[in-house]
Structure formats: C-alpha cells, structure tokens
C-alpha cells in the first residue's frame, strides 16, 4: 500500500479502508516505528474482539518501553497478523504492507471522522520531531 493513500490517527496508526467490504487494515506508521527502537514484542487482540476508535487494541514493546496501539476505527477484529511477534523486522522493512497488524470489520458507526490525511499526518510528525 502507498503511504500517501492511507489515513492516519493522531496516535500514529495507519488505516486502509475498503469501502466495498467495509473492512479496514491497520498498522503502525514508519515514523512511529522509527521512534520505537529495538522492538521485541507486539501483542495483538483475538479475532472477534470489539474495538473502538481511540481505545487500545494491543501493545508494542521495545526493550525498555511499551506503547499502546490505538484503534483508529470502530468495529470487530476479523483477522490478525499471526506470527508478527516472531518477525518484527517486517515492521521496519515494509510497515505499510507486510507490517499490517489487524483487519477490522467496520461497524455502522465507523468512527473515521478524526483521521488525518497523509499530508496532515506528515505535518504532525514534523511538529513532534521538534
């Protein structure tokens, strides 16, 4: 997936929404992954878990820090990236493709309102970097 075509949450998750199937693929942006050095573990939800926009659905850990992963949308987890914790390198090499984390079936109240475009997200990252 091309980063320019994705939507982003303020908490650095990216979302690719397929309007036809009403599903969203979610991952973590390259910017956030760069800031989290030395990844050691990622904990993803179980298939079937209900998620809400802005609420934690999992965690990503480096040696000495742990960060929540926040869902950008409302819905139900229909697939998770099995075995991602054993292949954390793909998060760095292909964050927007092989580095996907969960697939979420959107609920009627999709919760997509607060998401940022790529350019708006890039602006936020530039400000955070300062």
């Amino acid at each position: 997936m091309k980063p320019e075509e994705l939507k982003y949450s303020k908490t650095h998750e990216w979302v690719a929404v397929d309007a036809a199937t009403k599903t969203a693929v979610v991952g973590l942006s390259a910017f956030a992954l760069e800031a989290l050095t030395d990844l050691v573990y990622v904990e993803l939800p179980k298939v079937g878990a209900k998620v809400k926009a802005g609420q934690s659905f999992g965690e990503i850990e480096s040696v000495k820090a742990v960060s929540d992963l926040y869902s950008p949308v409302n819905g139900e987890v229909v697939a998770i990236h099995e075995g991602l914790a054993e292949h954390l390198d793909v998060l760095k090499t292909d964050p927007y493709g092989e580095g996907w984390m969960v697939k979420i079936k959107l609920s009627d109240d999709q919760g997509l309102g607060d998401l940022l475009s790529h350019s708006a997200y890039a602006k936020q990252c530039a400000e955070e970097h300062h």
Partner: protein
Amino acid sequence: MSYLFNTPDDQRAMLAAIGSGSLDELFAQLVPADSRLNRELNLPRALTEQELTEHMTSLAGANVAATQKPCFLGGGAYDHFIPAAVDALASRGEFFTSYTPYQPEVSQGNLAVTFEYQSFVTRLTGMDIANASLYDGGTACVEAVLMCMHATNRNGRVVIAASVHPEFRQVVETYLRDLECELVTVGTPDGIVTADDVAAACNDQTACVFVQQPNFFGCLEDVEAIGKAAHAAGAMFAVSVDPISLGLLKRPNEYGADIVTAEGQSLGNPLQYGGPYLGIIACREEFVRRMPGRICGETVDRRGKRCWVLTLQTREQHIRREKATSNICTNQLLFALRATIYLSLLGPQGLRETAELCARKAAYARGKLTSNTRFAQRFAAPTFKEFVVRDTSGEVEQLLADAERDGYFAGIALGRWYPELADSFLVAVTEKRTKAEIDGLAAALSSATASNKRTPAHA
C-alpha cells in the same frame, strides 16, 4: 558513631566546600521550619556492640528455639536440615550486600544464580518459565490468581479448595476484595477436594481453580481430575506445592497445571519466625508475559560471550507503572540463592532420598501416634509429610501445651482456622525427626492421656 566516617574536621571542611556554616544552617535551608522536629526522638539510648549483643542474647534466651525441642510443627514452614555450605556461601558479602542487577556487567554472579534458580524451579515443577522469586508462598498464590484473571480475561470468580493453607487463602481474599472478584471456597470435609465439587463451583466467569498438593492437611489431592474439571470450565489450573515433595511426587506438568507456586522455605532456608521466605512461581510458556516480578534471561555480550540479564522488563512496574503485571519490586534473591545451593548439594538423588525420608517417617509417626485409643487419623486420604490427628477427648490446646512442657513442639491446633477441626491438630515430620523422637512424642502424648484420665476436669 559506629558506622559513620565524618570527623568534626571532615564536617567543617565539607560544610565549607558547600558554602554552609553548620549542619543546622544546612537543614534550615532544606526543610521548612514548620516541618522540622524540634526535639530528640523518644527512643532508647544507643548501645555499643557489646551491650547490644548482651541485650539480643537475653531476648533470644526468652524464646525457645525450634532446635531446642523436637519440632513437629509444619503448616507451610518446616524444620528441614540445612547443610553448612548453604550458610557459608550465602553469607558472602558479595552476595548479600549487593542489589538488583541494574548493571549486568558487575552482577553476573547474581544473574547466574538467578538463571540457575529459575532452571531448578522449572525442572522441579516441569513448567517452562520461572521468575526470579516472589515474597513468599502466600503472595505467590495471589500473583498466580491475578495472572489467571488476566490471561483468561475472566474477573468474576476464583475457586479455591478449603484444603489450601488458610493463610494463603486469607491473602488471596484480601487482594480480591477490592477487585470485585468473587472467591468461592470449596469445602473439604474428607481432607481433600473432589473434582465434582470443583466443577460445580465453576461458572463461565471462573478464572482459576486453585489447590495445594500436598494440601494444608498433608493429604494428597486427586490433582489430575481437579485439573480436568478446571479446564472443562475454561478456567486455568493453579497449584501450590511443597518443593521437597517434588523429589518424589508427580510433577505439576504431569497433571495439567498451568501455574505452579510454592513456599520455598523448605529449600535450605531458616525458619526465622515466618520470614523472609521464598515465593516460587512457574508457568507454561504461553503465560510468560503475564508473569510478575523479575526474570533473568540468557544472551550474549558485545563480544559474543554468553551472559545473563534481567529481561522482559516491560512487564514490570518501573516501566509499565499502573498497567504492570504486579506491583512487586524487590524479590527474595538471597533465599533463592540458598535454595539453589541447597538443591545443588542434594542433587536429584539427595532430593529423592529427603522426600522419601519425610514420607516414610511421617507415615511411621501417623501410625505410632494414632495407635493410642485417644487419638485417631482425622482423614483417610494418603499423606506426604504431614497429617491431621483427632484428639477424641477434644482437649487439643491443653494437650499441645502439656507436650511442649514435656519437651516437644508437638503440632499445630487447627481450630483457629477450621472450627469443625477444633478437636484436631496437624503434625509435620521432616527427615530431621528420628525414630526416637517420634516414639518419644507418642509416649509424651500418651502420658498426657494418662494424666488427663487421672484429673479429668483439670481441677
């Protein structure tokens, strides 16, 4: 003063260096006047080493040590033999005056000990992962229960057998009270819990079934059936064990335990009136990230040399704060060290023989003590190194006091925890108890019988 360096000259020089006129001036700058104590603490005067030694010797003399009389007291703390090498090695200052290995380069000794300790615990229990120790056997039960609640995502109910150590159960109860999780205690009228009763106590919100093996009464539970009942209800199965018994009994992985805890005092640690002891916890690999406390792991250093570090630290309070798996910070490494040395000295054969000695001597004592008509075995279930004796004349407190006067710490009255067992007491027999001591205890209890018969009303 005893352990201070600064002479008046030193103090003057240091005060001058920091630009302060006196200690009083320094503290006036540091502590607001309204918070300062303007009198001396009301404490007893200082004692020199010689005076303190006399004082402590006098206090010690006002106690009767468990080594002064044959000790048949158990209930989670046991008078096992401690080899001299355990004391000699564990009293090395490099071990006991060091701290948490925040700098692994200068803590490889402690880290290697931790790694060996964890390895020993996994081999004893058959579990995959052990941590670097918890406070004691009671808090280990709580940590296991909390792990189960997190891992199953069930917070509604915890099922525990009444045959689990009553103080362990009390600790679990204290912790669960403010977490809105119901603690259901399954009765054990025959000294053991039945799988049917466990199954009936479980609901679809039950996080865990908790039993002890051997249990508080010394009886052996049908752990395999209980574990199956727990798993059938979707709950986890946690067991508290006696580590010495694992030299002889089936290991928890063989009967389906998910988490194993233990009071590790038995493994080379002194009784010292209840603590510090050693909280052991081990689990299956899938629960490793729910494990509380410190964990030591193997790695390599920058030159590729094998070494050890604290690992998986993101579980812990100093990183995860309110979301940590536990609030525990310190562990009991000094006692984990003692356990590691103890088990190294015993080896597999020594541990087996120690467990067999306990079992055989306890069985002998069970028969000997209950051969008198006043006393009976309270429960029929097989036992390991402890058993419950029923005093048919129902004068347990007096009996035990008489036995103590006659030179024996004979057992623990059970009425304070189990009103229905007010006529019973718990007797523990370790490898240290000799046949002569057991025969002597039986004789002392018999003579108590005789004297009671002579003066039935204690007139």
